[in-house]
């Protein structure tokens, strides 16, 4: 393989990058010489990987995540690691230990999160495409807020090996780009079975987008246009959906009754998984040193208090509480039953329709520091978490503006029908371009 280097010295006015590779090696292949940014919770051999947390400051992974290895094989130049909410916990990228990322469309606003750095790097023309991760909307939210395309693939379609785990039953690595075509190309490279991730499926993605929605039946869940959704955002998305009708799709109103429980089920599940996954950060194998002269509880407490930000500590404690004796049945078990109900609702709907469509986010991008209360921040994830609970593919594609800011159209599909979701987004994108 012929090796080259790509020079990369961006004017990072949005604080999108936590690490930059000024000379990024690249080779031949599907992504030959293309600059790709990688979210900082995805391991990159030899490049500092912090999850935007002080607890991993200085950590240099000794191996590549499987998705990163595939990028390198495809000839991509990995030009840097992007800013994020610490460990993926947030909706604005303000929860980074290294300062917030700004929205390239309006720098007084957040780019969304948690993959806000990846979205800003793509929207700000610093890179053509980027990898993000989506646990409860972390690819689709920043894609919507910054006016780019982002896909959460079907759970199992992309290996999570080397993704630093936050809530492993929910999260997927996925592609972000300025066009549906770029997102599709990036998915071609990263999808497929990996023996290091026992939840990965042998479902490679070899599709090229086709701009055709003729004959497709699209369900429009009432819950996606209910209270809490900004009427201006709802209006922009309804116009986009009528465009899909003009292109030959039929739409039918439908309902997801379990949406009532989805957000609580999501936050119980992700905090419980976080409390377990983040137990490994104790300053022993990586990160700032634990004081080995102290007893282990004292040493770990000291490292974790200094190293984790407030939101991470909040979620670890919530998860610890929800799993504790006497509360497990009330929270964790009920959340898993609710999750099954969400899955059952989607299965029922997908026996009647091919796709579901609605807004990605209930509002446009918030102003920096606008949301300070954790619960009100959590509530803004209501339209994205159902796809994670059910493991289904979901894309956000730009569909216009409200109050001068981008709005995302979210399209969800059947498990492992990422192709259909991508085709519908492509048909819309080509029709309005």
């Amino acid at each position: 393989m012929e090796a080259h280097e790509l020079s990369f010295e961006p004017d990072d006015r949005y604080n999108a990058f936590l690490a930059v590779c000024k000379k990024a090696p690249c080779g031949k292949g599907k992504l030959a010489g293309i600059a790709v940014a990688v979210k900082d919770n995805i391991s990159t051999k030899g490049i500092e990987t912090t999850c935007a947390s002080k607890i991993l400051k200085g950590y240099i992974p000794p191996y590549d995540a499987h998705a990163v290895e595939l990028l390198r094989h495809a000839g991509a130049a990995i030009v840097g690691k992007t800013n994020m909410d610490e460990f993926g916990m947030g909706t604005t990228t303000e929860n980074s230990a290294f300062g917030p990322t700004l929205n390239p469309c309006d720098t007084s606003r957040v780019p969304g999160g948690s993959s806000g750095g990846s979205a800003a790097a793509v929207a700000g023309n610093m890179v053509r495409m980027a990898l993000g991760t989506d646990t409860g909307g972390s690819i689709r939210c920043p894609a919507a807020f910054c006016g780019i395309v982002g896909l959460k693939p079907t759970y199992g379609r992309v290996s999570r090996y080397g993704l630093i785990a936050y809530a492993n039953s929910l999260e997927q690595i996925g592609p972000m780009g300025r066009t549906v075509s770029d997102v599709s190309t990036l998915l071609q490279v990263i999808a497929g079975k990996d023996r290091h991730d026992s939840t990965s499926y042998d479902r490679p993605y070899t599709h090229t987008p086709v701009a055709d929605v003729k004959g497709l039946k699209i369900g429009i869940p009432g819950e996606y246009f209910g209270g809490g959704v900004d009427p201006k955002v709802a209006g922009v998305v309804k116009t986009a959906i009528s465009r899909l009708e003009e292109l030959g799709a039929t739409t039918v109103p439908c309902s997801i009754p379990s949406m009532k429980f989805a957000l609580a089920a999501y936050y119980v599940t992700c905090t419980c998984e976080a409390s377990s996954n983040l137990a490994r950060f104790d300053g022993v194998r990586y990160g700032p040193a634990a004081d080995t002269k102290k007893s282990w509880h004292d040493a770990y407490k000291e490292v974790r208090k200094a190293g984790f930000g407030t939101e991470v500590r909040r979620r670890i404690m919530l998860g610890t509480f929800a799993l504790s004796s006497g509360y497990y049945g009330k929270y964790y078990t009920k959340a898993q039953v609710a999750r099954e109900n969400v899955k059952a609702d989607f299965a029922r709907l997908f026996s009647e329709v091919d796709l579901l469509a609605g807004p990605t986010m209930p509002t446009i991008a918030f102003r920096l520091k606008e949301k300070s209360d954790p619960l009100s921040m959590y509530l803004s994830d209501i339209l994205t978490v159902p796809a994670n609970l059910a493991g289904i593919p979901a894309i956000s594609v730009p569909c216009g503006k409200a109050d001068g800011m981008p709005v995302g159209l979210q399209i969800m599909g059947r498990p492992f029908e990422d192709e259909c979701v991508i085709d519908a987004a492509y048909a819309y994108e080509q029709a309005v371009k």
Partner: protein
Amino acid sequence: MVTEKDVEHIAELADIGINTGELGTFTHQFNAILDYFDVLDQVKGDTTVTRDLTNIMREDVVEPSLSRDEVLKNAAAQEDGFIKAPRVM
């Protein structure tokens, strides 16, 4: 309803470390969030979810892995090629 004492106990369980000055805010926020979680009380059924899946195991044979040097590279405290940890006893 959780109290400041409960939050202190949870912080202890999670080895998270907490200042007395932070207890009030965390307690207030937890109560708001847990009130919201109460919607789950309306979910019918409480049987643990089972799935028709089997564990994927491989043969217990040594496969190539990271070298000792690579593993130790990120450990802040080490001695004689081992990672040094706080005392347990």
